[in-house]
């Protein structure tokens, strides 16, 4: 145990510190990742002229909107010292089910010939319901049978993928209605719709975590589950709620993804859960529990997104990108450990 007595001060107090070195340290601790994001942004702008184009930047944010959504859910789960490996597969399941109810009129190979041209609200609600149900099952198994989250969500990851393949017979479900496609492709006042969804969900999740009893309980369960039980928390109930919310976000991400490519494919989202966890960890969420924020995760997702995008523009091979991503994740975890010692 180190004699590290740095206080955790609110924003105003930081600048009142007489010792500038100390103030700088506290500032870095709190806003370090934003600085890294800015540095990365500047670096990429210098290295590639195409980077700063509006279209490109909008593309980046559009691409990270899916990871950002499931990243928020997994952040909440990791704060309680849990993990969710099923987000990618739930994306696929929600995507194929929603897409099957969003097919346009006149498409001969529609899955449900009697259910074409449905109002967009139906595939959306159903897709969300699928995600929510998967999350609810995750949470219930973990809370009731005390199975480690890693195992329970690993099971769901495999089962949901299998169900997606079964449901779609292994084939893409295509030709979707315009109103459905709007969700992933449309723009409102020049802003891509997925970004609007991301921001709305980020605000909601942030408020949930910081301003409600629910949020306090999430941090408490992660901080010390035994102490939380003794203080009267119904930990089981909250675990179910947390995983259900993560499932809801996965469902939403599935709708977003399938509407963007106008096709519900059973292979969607493969590997996304790991990217989401990476975004959360880079953003400061601690795998030991009790620490993490929505904005940190968004910044983490942006860092990954800008890195990927920048390296693409520089024609760096996708293989190198993967190696780099892995190294950054490990570096982030090491820094996190030292910060929280």
């Amino acid at each position: 145990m180190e004699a590290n007595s740095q206080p955790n001060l609110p924003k105003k107090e930081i600048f009142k510190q007489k010792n500038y070195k100390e103030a700088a340290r506290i500032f870095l601790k709190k806003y370090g990742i934003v600085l890294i994001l800015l540095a990365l942004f500047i670096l990429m702008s210098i290295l590639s002229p195409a980077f700063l184009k509006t279209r490109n930047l909008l593309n980046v944010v559009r691409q990270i909107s899916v990871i950002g959504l499931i990243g928020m859910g997994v952040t909440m789960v990791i704060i309680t010292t849990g993990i969710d490996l099923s987000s990618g597969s739930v994306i696929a399941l929600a995507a194929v089910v929603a897409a099957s109810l969003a097919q346009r009129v006149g498409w001969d190979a529609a899955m449900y010939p009697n259910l074409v041209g449905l109002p967009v609200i139906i595939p959306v609600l159903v897709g969300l319901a699928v995600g929510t149900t998967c999350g609810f099952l995750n949470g219930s198994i973990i809370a009731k049978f005390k199975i480690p989250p890693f195992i329970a969500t690993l099971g769901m990851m495999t089962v949901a993928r299998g169900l997606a393949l079964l449901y779609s017979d292994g084939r893409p479900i295509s030709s979707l209605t315009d109103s459905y496609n709007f969700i992933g492709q449309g723009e409102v006042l020049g802003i891509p719709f997925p970004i609007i969804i991301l921001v709305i969900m980020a605000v909601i999740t942030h408020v949930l975590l910081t301003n409600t009893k629910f949020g306090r309980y999430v941090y408490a369960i992660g901080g010390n589950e035994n102490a939380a039980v003794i203080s009267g928390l119904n930990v089981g109930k909250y675990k179910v709620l947390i995983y259900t919310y993560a499932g809801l976000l996965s469902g939403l991400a599935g709708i977003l993804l399938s509407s963007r490519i106008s096709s519900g494919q059973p292979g969607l989202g493969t590997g996304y859960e790991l990217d989401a966890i990476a975004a959360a960890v880079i953003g400061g969420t601690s795998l030991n529990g009790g620490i993490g924020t929505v904005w940190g995760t968004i910044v983490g997702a942006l860092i990954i997104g800008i890195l990927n995008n920048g390296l693409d523009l520089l024609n760096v091979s996708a293989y190198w990108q993967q190696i780099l991503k892995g190294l950054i994740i490990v570096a982030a975890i090491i820094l996190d450990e030292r910060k929280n010692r």
Partner: protein
Amino acid sequence: MDNGYILLMENITKAFPGVKALDNVELRVRKGTVHALMGENGAGKSTLMKILIGIYTPDGGTITFKNQKVVIDNTNTALKMGISMIHQELSPIPYMTVAENIFLGREPVNKLGLIDKKKMVEDARKLFQRLELNINPNSLMRELSIANTQMVEIAKAISYDSSMIIMDEPTSAITEKEVEHLFRIVRSLKEEGVSIIYITHKMDEVFKISDDITVFRDGRHIKTLPAGETNKEGLISMMVGRELSQIFPKSAAEIGDVVLSVRNLTRKGKFQNVSFELRRGEILGFAGLMGAGRTEVMECIFGVAKYDEGEIFINNIKVDIKTPQDSIKHGMALLTEDRKLTGILSVLSVRDNMVLASIDKYRRGMFLNKKRIAEVCENEKGKLGIKTPSMEQLIKLLSGGNQQKVLISRWLLTSPEILILDEPTRGIDVGAKAEIHRLMSKLAQEGKAIMMISSELPEVLGMSDRVMVMHEGRLSGEFLRCDVDQEKIMKCATGTNN
């Protein structure tokens, strides 16, 4: 006998966040003697021993062992040098056998380099024979009683054939018969030239077995002297620094109606037939050795664990307690024994820790009234004298005493009628201790009912209106404040009062 010093620890300093555990202390042990190290909880004894055994490194000072300056940077170094330790906290590996636990890390290997299980069991058997212990080396550790677990721990430390053995509360879980046995072993070790550092709270043992005594207080060395040159009262005043009556200010409170009544409470394997009553304004002390079952009883009353038989009545109405939520609804609060393990949320702020149990009170619909929370926290900080730079401060950076105060305010914010305090002043400095005792008195005066588990006899004697003593899962004694003393409690605690 060579009376040279086998161990010299000089000018040792060690600090942790928020607390200076050791301030320039010294310890000089003569070869072939039993040297008792005494002091209240938090005086620094365990910290110094952890430095000697290589778990901590000192911030300053020197250690000289067998006339050579040494640096002990890990436990292996200490063991190789010839220092082994019987730890206060027993942490055996439950699913491994007795023999495997004893030889962990130094298992005998055969010619193929594989563990020689037969030899390991045989060596364990020989060790037990030498120490006259009747334990089966093939039993799993989890099958052993706490007393036998401690005896195995003792055997393990001795099996290293070290020149110096540190015994940290070696008799906390064993009966008087086994204590005599241990003393026989200690005396024969002395004859073999082994030096022993003996840490205990039990005054009688100190005078029975030790040659020299060193007293620590608040992280400082107070005095070292031969055992023959002092007595119980002298030791207590050195350890505590003031008269006993001054430190436990239990002021008189009006004792009212029975608020909690427990009848024939039983939990298989932990405790049986526990019955007692608790009144408003009363502080009911629970004394007993480690493993006697006191914490387990409180866990059942509070709903942390399930009991098999018995009934609980609150205000004369039978209640069904299944979870801590139930207990809190009935006005109970539980301050747990180990604040690090089950008390504080270490990565969270003081504020988050404080409002955890009462958070429903600060809700405005779905949202939290942050202003109200801030007010409430400042209020409690002032009332209890909690030292922290701000409410945002991470609780793990506070001293033990202040952490405990935050936990107490966590419970006070739920407006409880019955408070269960399990070792409320364990591991905190004397100043904070006194403050917590004053707070307890005040709460009793306000009509709250308090149950206090404590392993510090002076605290039990000073603070309780009545004392219940437990021994191996049963209530073995009940005394009024005026009728009780240390001897009577120890007799009941060790089961020798029949």
